[in-house]
């Protein structure tokens, strides 16, 4: 949980890569072991993670279904026009697991890392690309501003909607063109207000001596602790192992 966000982002990336490298279902034991370890370390309750799978359950089911019926190979049984093959069963389980692992892995990142840590991590990770013209600081700053204003704009959306409803606006019926028109009284004020906010915020930022990323320090320094080092070594081993499995088997 307390690992360096940079590490967490990189780890998630390497995890995803490993996931796609591995093409043997037996090697998934490795993934399971890795996930189990991370979940244990992160102290996120398992229930919480599994709940994240709920909305995607149908998609997993469809993936499973299509794979099981559409893969050619040794026929196991026939259901009308459809046939289930040995390879199909294998593929279906394999793909469904891959998807589940993918979702668990990525949600682990967002569950254990605050948005600020994420943006900070992204900024630092992008820093080396600065010389290729990637504006690392600016991108991170924009994300911070976006995250700061998303709740504000959500509230405002609700407020404007209600205000226009009080003037008889109808957001709830009609065909698509009527709907599109009904959104004008909502979106135009929302857009305008966003720009007004941007203007005022820019002024407030400059009044507080903002002048871009140069010479800027951060209150919370990201420090690479010993635990980050250990975790990194484990990570490298893990990726190495998955590549090894891929080549060897």
């Amino acid at each position, binding site marked *: 949980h307390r690992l360096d966000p940079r590490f967490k982002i990189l780890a998630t990336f390497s995890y995803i890569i490993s996931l796609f490298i591995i093409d043997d279902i037996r090697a998934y034991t490795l993934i399971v072991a890795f996930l189990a370890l991370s979940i244990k370390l992160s102290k996120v309750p398992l229930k919480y993670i599994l709940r994240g799978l709920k909305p995607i359950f149908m998609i997993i089911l469809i993936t499973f279904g299509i794979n099981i019926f559409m893969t050619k190979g040794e026929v196991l049984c026939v259901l009308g026009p459809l046939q289930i093959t040995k390879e199909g069963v294998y593929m279906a389980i394999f793909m469904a697991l891959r998807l589940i692992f993918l979702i668990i892995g990525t949600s682990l990142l967002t569950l254990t890392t605050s*948005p*600020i840590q994420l943006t900070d991590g992204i900024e630092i990770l992008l820093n080396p690309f600065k010389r290729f013209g990637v504006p690392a600081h600016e991108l991170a700053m924009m994300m*911070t*501003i976006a*995250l*700061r204003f998303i*709740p*504000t704009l959500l*509230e405002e959306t609700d407020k404007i909607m209600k205000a226009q409803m009080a003037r008889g606006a109808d957001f709830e019926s009609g065909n698509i063109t009527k709907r599109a028109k009904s959104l004008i009284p909502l979106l135009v004020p929302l857009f305008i207000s966003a720009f*007004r*906010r941007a203007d*005022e*915020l820019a*002024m*407030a*930022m*400059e*009044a*507080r*001596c*903002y*002048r871009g990323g140069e*010479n*800027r*320090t*951060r*209150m*919370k*320094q990201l420090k690479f602790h010993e635990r980050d080092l250990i975790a990194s070594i484990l990570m490298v081993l893990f990726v190495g192992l998955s590549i090894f499995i891929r080549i060897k088997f």
Partner: protein
Amino acid sequence: MTNMVETKKLVFEYIKDENKKVCAVNNLSIEIKKGEFVVIIGHNGSGKSTLAKLMNAILLPSGGKVYINNMDTLDEDKLWDIRRTAGMVFQNPDNQIVATTVEEDVAFGPENLGIEPLEIRKRVDNAMKSVGIESYKRKPPHLLSGGQKQRVAIAGVLAMKPECIIFDEPTAMLDPLGRKEVMDTIMKLNKEGITIIHITHFMDEAVNADRVIVMDKGQIVLEGTPREIFSQVEKLKKLGLDVPQVTLLAHSLKKEGINISQDILTVDEMVSKLCQLL
């Protein structure tokens, strides 16, 4: 004593649609001493806000000069020093908070100044304590009340260790409770030695000032202690401004031929004056 803020024949013009020049600040000279608590009043469009922005070098003069602690706002090298010395708090509490938590936002200013992380931590903690927001330092700003948000903004300025803070109608969008929170904070900071320039529409906020400046059409039309200013009821009314209710009462009693002084500002003063009469 030296001047914290000084303007000399300050002019600010801007071009409103199609070359129509508008003069927002017109030949204005003021001196504000270190440690002073100055309130600027005037109706909308009188040039108050423009003046505030000129003092923070957000706007630059079209003519004349603005000096902050003897630094010329036209001197580009001094820009960051000026903004650090004279911090600014704006009207809308929402649109001046940058970061996603209170403490990160308070740290924004010092981070821009390139201060050491440990020192920033110290400053942020002190600033939050000073305005009384440390109990929700990890909260996201959208969960705070208007008064709390404004205090976060004040803490953000304080963390830059300013000598002067310019408040541009910080209470206009707040409820009475929020206004009180902010006004108490402002008074406290002034007692601690920070020069305060406070722009407001609420006359009761001007009662405790060292000096009140009344603006109209980009110029100073009245200037003096709250007592001197508010006794000129007729003139203020003509300018579209309020006076405290008790002052108004004293004024109308006087008109009825009652012998009562017109420079009453507070309820207590009124009570003691009436006691003498009754």
